[in-house]
């Protein structure tokens, strides 16, 4: 994306925006412009996210689908999350792991983590995502690094989705342990909402979290994965800022792939409902806009989304999907009732069923697209 100033921090760039004005712009319908379909700048990207007619979305879908085919092919890369722990000292109001919920807490031992990993390996997975709540006492960075080294012997690709680390050096330890991919969602890029949903714990610090992917980028991760949890704040604004963040990171860390996830809030524990629900049309428009503005960025769609929608998104812009996910520690070896889930999985299909469905829509499911020899 042209015209991104990486001499400033991303937080400075966000602060320089008038967010109310941005929201107004985003809510005001703007006709689809032909030139916005080809490498749009940030303004063009914003125009893609404004309300569109069905016919305009159709045009965007044709373009997005063509770009996805040409850049990524008719393939979807599969991965699975492995939850190490659901212990967490944060109070995120929308999350099943928040510290004041009465969730049954489990932290897996190293051997239990390996059992889970073996179960996933047996299923066919070769890309694994290690996930943990924020508890530096029970799951310190050294432990995650150690687990990554063990898991790496079986999985060519190891990713992490954990609390933000404090320094570039801490992140470098992860890279040196074979983790090449980091996912860290800002949840919402809107500071006021962020403060509201994160009343306690280290995660209260918006700036610290926002700069974490800069620390990770400096540490040399091959892939940086951004995302906002749609539903927490007006989706158009969070999608615009997610894209802005992706563009910033892509320019600053030119050797790293910048991937974009589109997690959407479904009811978490205790029936919390999303304050700003993003419907399917919204999610689809976000995916199409990302694909058009970021032709080379992988787009990740998780099992939070229902099967029929995921099958369609595989042809429109998504490139990467989890399958058969268990969002509680021990879920792959101990069944569903072992510990508290972080969120409910909408797509309940087994990995085999996901694979069969993808083949049916003409997409090749890819289990391995990285190698330990690369990093």
């Amino acid at each position, binding site marked *: 994306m042209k015209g991104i100033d990486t001499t400033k921090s991303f937080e400075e760039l966000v602060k320089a925006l008038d967010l109310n004005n941005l929201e107004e712009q985003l809510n005001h319908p703007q006709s689809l412009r032909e030139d916005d379909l080809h490498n749009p700048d940030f303004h063009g990207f914003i125009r893609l996210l404004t309300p569109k007619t069905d016919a305009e979305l159709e045009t965007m879908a044709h373009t997005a689908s063509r770009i996805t*085919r*040409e*850049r*990524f*092919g*008719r*393939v979807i890369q599969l991965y699975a999350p492995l939850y190490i722990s659901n212990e967490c000292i944060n109070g995120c109001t929308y999350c099943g792991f928040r510290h004041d919920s009465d969730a049954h807490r489990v932290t897996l031992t190293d051997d239990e983590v390996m059992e889970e990993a073996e179960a996933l390996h047996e299923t066919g997975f*070769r890309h694994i995502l290690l996930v943990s709540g924020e508890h530096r006492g029970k799951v310190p960075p050294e432990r995650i690094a150690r687990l990554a080294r063990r898991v790496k012997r079986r999985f*060519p690709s190891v990713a992490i989705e954990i609390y933000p680390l404090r320094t570039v050096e801490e992140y470098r330890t992860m890279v040196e342990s074979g983790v090449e991919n980091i996912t860290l969602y800002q949840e919402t890029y809107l500071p006021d909402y962020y403060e509201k949903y994160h009343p306690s714990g280290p995660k209260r610090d918006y700036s610290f979290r926002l700069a974490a992917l800069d620390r990770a980028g400096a540490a040399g991760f*091959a892939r940086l994965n951004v995302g906002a949890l749609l539903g927490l704040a007006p989706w158009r604004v969070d999608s615009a800022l997610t894209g802005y963040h992706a563009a910033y990171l*892509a320019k600053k860390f*030119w*050797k*790293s*792939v910048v991937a974009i996830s589109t997690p959407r809030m479904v009811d978490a524990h205790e029936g919390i409902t999303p304050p700003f629900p993003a419907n399917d049309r919204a999610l689809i428009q976000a995916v199409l806009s990302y694909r058009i503005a970021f032709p*080379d960025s992988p787009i990740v769609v998780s099992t939070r989304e229902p099967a029929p929608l995921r099958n369609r998104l595989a042809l429109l812009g998504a490139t990467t999907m989890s399958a058969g996910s268990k969002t509680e520690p021990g879920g792959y070896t101990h069944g569903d009732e072992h510990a508290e889930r972080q969120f409910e999985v909408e797509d309940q299909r087994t990995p085999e069923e996901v694979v069969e469905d993808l*083949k049916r829509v*003409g*997409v*090749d499911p*890819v*289990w*391995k*697209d*990285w*190698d330990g*020899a*690369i*990093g």
Partner: protein
Amino acid sequence: MENLIIAGRTFRSRLFMGTGKFSSPQAMVEALEASQCEMVTVAVRRVDLDNPHDPMMEAIDWKRFFLLPNTSGARNADEAVRVARLARAATGTNWVKLEVTPDPRNLLPDPVDTLEATIRLIKEGFIVLPYMPADPILARRLEDAGAAAVMPLGAPIGTKRGIRTRDAIEMIIENASVPVVVDAGIGAPSHAAEAMEMGADAVLVNTAVAVARDPKRIAAAFHLGVIAGREARLSGMAGTSAPEASSPLDGLL
């Protein structure tokens, strides 16, 4: 059409095919067959070398096709060398298509690390075919280092934009003593024909075939495009600098 010889090995087809981006292993195999190619490149990163039934490797009849492993995904010389060693250990071939692409967005090859990896791999006994920027001096340096062929790009990988580096590729062809294989950017049989008319020894195609509605059919069209371009080149087509059978001044001076 006369044979192509690379590192002492003879190939009847001047069309090389990639194996990524297909909708299924079956669609890939059908396209390979229709293309009548022999040289087939496979990304090591995509192959589960521990799995004897890896779907892609198992789908291809390796008695019919010649395997050219590639180092796709490597971002520097060290990674590329490691991937090449792994490929050799797992498949037994010492041929490698070297790809060193530090920029994941355009996948442009790194000239410095490509040269470095070529030198190191040749020392280790590999037959190296480097994917390279269309730079005539780099082509000479790679050839001096012992590359078995050079593979300049027509346009960035996957863009299907054709031969955008025409002048540089013409210079590379003019000066090369090893085969020149135009790799990347070839989006249509006419682009393949154009490269062959220019005097390229072969072309490598992947995306244009894999993402076509009918990969098999366009693969056959690429086969014809390559033959048409090569025949045109050999015909002494007007306006080209194809070598003449004899000097115009022969016997006059």
